[in-house]
């Protein structure tokens, strides 16, 4: 039974990848790093529920096998299908965002890093529905960088997804999506939380294509 579930998870994963490629021709642009299996935290902008599957789809297989997206438990455990896709297809690290819960998200994230996994996180915390490029970052990225300083923190910009699948629309538009990976950053000695988060946010915003309108 376990074997069957794993097999189904692989099939579903491949289908999602093929679908993403066929519709958006998603392309990875490795600007600041090489696509090699190294332990990293990819931190990305968040405008659509398609962001995470899009980053996941454009990673080469060797990296995709070791990467674990950090995602909200309340979203991925809502029904049986999501509870299968989130933890088993994408191998998500599910965190509970409610403050009253005992097991703290950061403990789970650090545990995943200690097992050798790479992570995909969205440091804005929520989907960005504003006209601003990015929302202010939450502290998580800083805490990870502080606790595990050897892990590379890689800014990852997902372009176009808010046009491909804006909130409230049902049909995805087949436009070309590019995922850009920038140069890794680390928390520097004596750098305060706010300084670091501002630097991380700038590094991510620098990857956004210029507004052509």
């Amino acid at each position, binding site marked *: 039974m376990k074997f069957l579930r794993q097999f189904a998870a692989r099939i579903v994963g491949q289908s999602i990848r093929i679908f993403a490629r066929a519709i958006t*021709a998603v*392309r990875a642009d490795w600007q600041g790093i090489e696509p090699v299996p190294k332990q990293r935290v990819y931190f990305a902008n968040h405008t659509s529920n398609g962001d995470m599957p899009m980053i996941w789809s454009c990673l080469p297989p060797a990296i995709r096998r070791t990467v674990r997206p950090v995602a909200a438990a309340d979203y991925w455990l809502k029904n049986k299908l999501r509870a299968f896709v989130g933890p088993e297809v994408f191998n998500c690290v599910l965190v509970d965002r409610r403050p009253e819960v005992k097991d703290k998200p950061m403990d789970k994230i650090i545990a995943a890093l200690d097992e050798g996994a790479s992570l995909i996180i969205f440091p804005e915390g929520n989907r960005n529905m504003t006209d601003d490029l990015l929302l202010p970052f939450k502290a998580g990225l800083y805490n990870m960088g502080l606790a595990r300083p050897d892990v590379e923190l890689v800014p990852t910009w997902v372009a*176009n997804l808010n*046009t491909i699948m*804006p909130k409230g*629309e049902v*049909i995805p*538009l*087949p*436009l*070309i999506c590019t995922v850009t990976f920038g140069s890794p950053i680390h928390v520097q000695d004596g750098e305060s939380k706010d300084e670091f988060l501002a630097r991380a946010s700038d590094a991510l915003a620098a990857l956004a294509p*210029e507004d*052509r*309108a």
Partner: protein
Amino acid sequence: MTETTSDILLLAFGSFGILIALTFVGEVLRAREDPGFVNPVLDTYMTRVQSWWGMVAFVGVALLMGKIGVMVLFAFTSFAALREFLTLTTKAQADHMSLALAFFVVLPLQYFFIGMGWDGLYTVFIPVYAFLLLPIVSALRGNADKYLIRVAETQWGLMIAVFCVSHVPALMTIDIAGYDDRSVLLIAFLVMVVQFGDLLEYFFGRRIGKTRIAPGLSPKTWEGVICGVVCAMLIGGLLAWITPFGIWGAMAMAGAASLVGLLGSLVFAAIKRDRGVKDWSHLIPGQGGFVDQLDSVIFAAPIFYHFTKYFYG
């Protein structure tokens, strides 16, 4: 084997012969270089030749499969071209439905009408019906910000990527006395004269080009374009046996298609420059996107279609 099939095979083998020669030249040049030294010009040349192999194979198989094969190939080409085009245009969430209609309704319907051979409809469907209806759909969402730019650019995308591209398979629907099922060969003729004209324009432009046509837009020169068009006419004359045009007619048609195509690629250069991109996308290794590869065929197709219909149909 019918005569049409054997002619397609002959053209395919001829093209493969040229590609083998080009590949051979590239490999010899590569072998003569110091190992470890990377020559970017040669590498670009080789990736381009490899992409050409793929394209000749795709078009050849599609032509051999006849009407259905050609329709499917060009419908997918339209899809890829429209995707590249609309990725770069101005749009708002208010356009979501009209853009979805463009991809999933207008595009398939255009090819459906061509499949039916309903020329009274497929020649006006996008310039009239889509032109009037899609802006209504966008307007219903009540967002006036950059409205004219949004609807105009969407319509441009549809005209270029769907209307113009679909006029290549539409050549199959033209009734020419005594030509019958051979009309599929007109596609091979159009694509070959325009693409070879492009290639030779590039070659001669590099060698002897001096007078830029549109400085600041594109490196194309009058010398290069004239040589390209003359070469396209000669190739057209050599390919006259697959057309109903006769030698002089084939040369004239090839020249007209190649000239319109070469000047059309200036239009695409202007759009790319306006949007600040070098290529339309990265889907074809070494060549950029589908629109980069097909820009001149896109412009030449409707003209070639109407000339054929007017003079020979």
